[in-house]
């Protein structure tokens, strides 16, 4: 019988410092782990514990997997100490990711905030790959300040793509920042799509998800076309341990990607 609690051994190949509190780790799993954008992994440091993370690398790359991690607690403190050559455990992929097939022929608006830009990078790679099948692709990203923009060089490269309508904003600028200043919802008014048929994807901290969703609603995107990547305390990752319950769903098994229509009536979804 398959043991769902088992982790696959993986080696740390490379550690990239993104910001003082954020690092991207490049892992080489000893067994092939095929994931889709929006799905998550349980990453463990042997003997210390597991925590859920969404990969930030191209899901078509079967050799390595990248995960961008903010230092916020017990497990991530230890993860941040990892060096190339160290061993970790990877369990997954878990959950349901973005239904890419449903986006074919659609105008797609991706709205990201803060560290939400990490999992969205995986999604963007997939959307770029199927770009000829999408009617339009729009990306709006927001961060607290320019120093916290993840993958800034790469994102600035995306800005030059003719097949992407992209804007980045920061809450607080600095002398070098030439772009807009304000929360992400302030750079959404110039989006030119048929909102009544468009797909909206929101990923970021709870407060940003809430107002990003409300903004898409206000622009006219139907609740059933707004995709949210929810964050709850996901431990087992397959709907048994009970920690991440969201109404009649488990965030880990039934999500973490939900449409707003599916979860809008559940009390406390933004908490």
């Amino acid at each position: 019988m398959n043991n769902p609690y088992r982790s696959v051994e993986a080696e740390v190949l490379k550690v990239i410092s993104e910001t003082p509190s954020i690092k991207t780790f490049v892992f080489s799993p000893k067994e092939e782990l095929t994931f889709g954008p929006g799905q998550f992994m349980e990453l463990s440091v042997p003997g210390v514990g597991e925590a859920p993370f969404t990969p930030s690398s191209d899901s078509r790359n079967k050799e390595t997997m990248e995960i961008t991690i903010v230092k916020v607690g017990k497990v991530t403190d230890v993860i941040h100490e990892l060096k190339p050559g160290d061993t970790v455990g990877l369990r997954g992929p878990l959950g349901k990711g973005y239904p890419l097939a449903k986006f074919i022929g659609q105008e797609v608006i991706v709205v990201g905030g803060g560290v939400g830009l990490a999992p969205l990078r995986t999604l963007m790679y997939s959307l770029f790959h199927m770009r000829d099948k999408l009617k339009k692709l729009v990306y709006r990203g927001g961060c607290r300040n320019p120093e916290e923009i993840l993958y800034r060089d790469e994102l600035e490269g995306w800005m030059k793509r003719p097949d992407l309508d992209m804007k980045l904003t920061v809450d607080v600028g600095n002398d070098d920042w030439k772009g807009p200043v304000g929360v992400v919802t302030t750079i959404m008014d110039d989006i030119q799509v048929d909102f009544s048929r468009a797909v909206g994807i929101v990923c970021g901290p709870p407060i940003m998800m809430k107002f990003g969703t409300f903004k898409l609603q206000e622009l006219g995107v139907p609740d059933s076309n707004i995709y949210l990547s929810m964050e709850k305390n996901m431990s087992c990752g397959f709907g048994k341990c009970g920690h991440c319950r969201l109404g009649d769903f488990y965030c880990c098994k039934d999500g973490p990607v939900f449409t707003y229509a599916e979860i809008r009536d559940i009390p406390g979804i933004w908490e």
Partner: protein
Amino acid sequence: MLFITRGNLNKLLESLSGDYRVFVPTQSGERTAFSPLSEKTLEKMVIGGVRGFEPLKAFYFLGREKVAEGFGPETPHANDIPPCIVGVKACDLRGFHILDHVYMDEDYGDPTYMKARREGLIISSDCTETLDTCFCTAVGGKPWPESDFDINLSPAADGFLVLQGSEKGKNTIQKYRSLFQEATDETTRSVKQVRSTVKRKLEKSAAENKIPPVEKLAGTVKRNYESSVWADETSTCVECGACNTICPTCHCFLLYDQQSDGRLARFRIWDSCLIKDFARVAGGENPRARLWMRLRNRFDKKFDFFPNVAGEVACTGCGRCIAACPGKIDIRKVLGRLDSE
């Protein structure tokens, strides 16, 4: 119908101990507790009586159990001898409806639980007495098993009326057929009488405790989500989690990693949704920061979530949470208050 004498039952259980880890209910002070089969425990074995002190889940997914070791494909406990639990009561068997729904599935089923369920043997029995905290009939149950057992024993004079409940039970009886005899009409009549007496007692107690009818329980939390009953009932809660630990349907756990001989050792440990950090996410956000929200969550899970996803309330009326609560929070009273809101 078949009948087995007490002496022959002892022989049967001794024979079964070759294939199973046999646990029998024994009287220990005022409690009935399951103990491993031995000459001594057989002497003190009580087949009728009331439910055991500990919930049945304690034998199917242990409070602390190793679920993974190292990175290899081997599953811990894969070679464990399956359990045979004797004298299990109907309320505990009903708990399996919820636990099976959670733990048994092809893709992500819990290997240890599924093995114990598939290979284990259950010899259940009728309740011949009640506790003040029993309320199975109020949640649609009966004080005798009607399903989910392999063999059921109904206490009668000098022995037990025997009912087979599964193919495994049938085969077990066949294998040890010489230990059984045909039951007399007198035995059947006396069992019926005990059953109706116990049931009447429970129905009277349910009425006295004003427990709302089971068909009104599903959805009760949703209807009373913002009720002041939650904060009020939580005022004596000390956040110990006993209600979760002792409950035959509470299934939540925590995965806890340790090192053993330099290798990863992952344990599955019972967890409690009443504890503050249960739903807290990394970074500190807590969707159920207040204790009353966590009490409400426990009821929400039992009376809204499980009826929606598994088709029945996740309360079997065993009353263990009432007996265990140091704050005297009484699930019957909470349900009654919600119903009268």
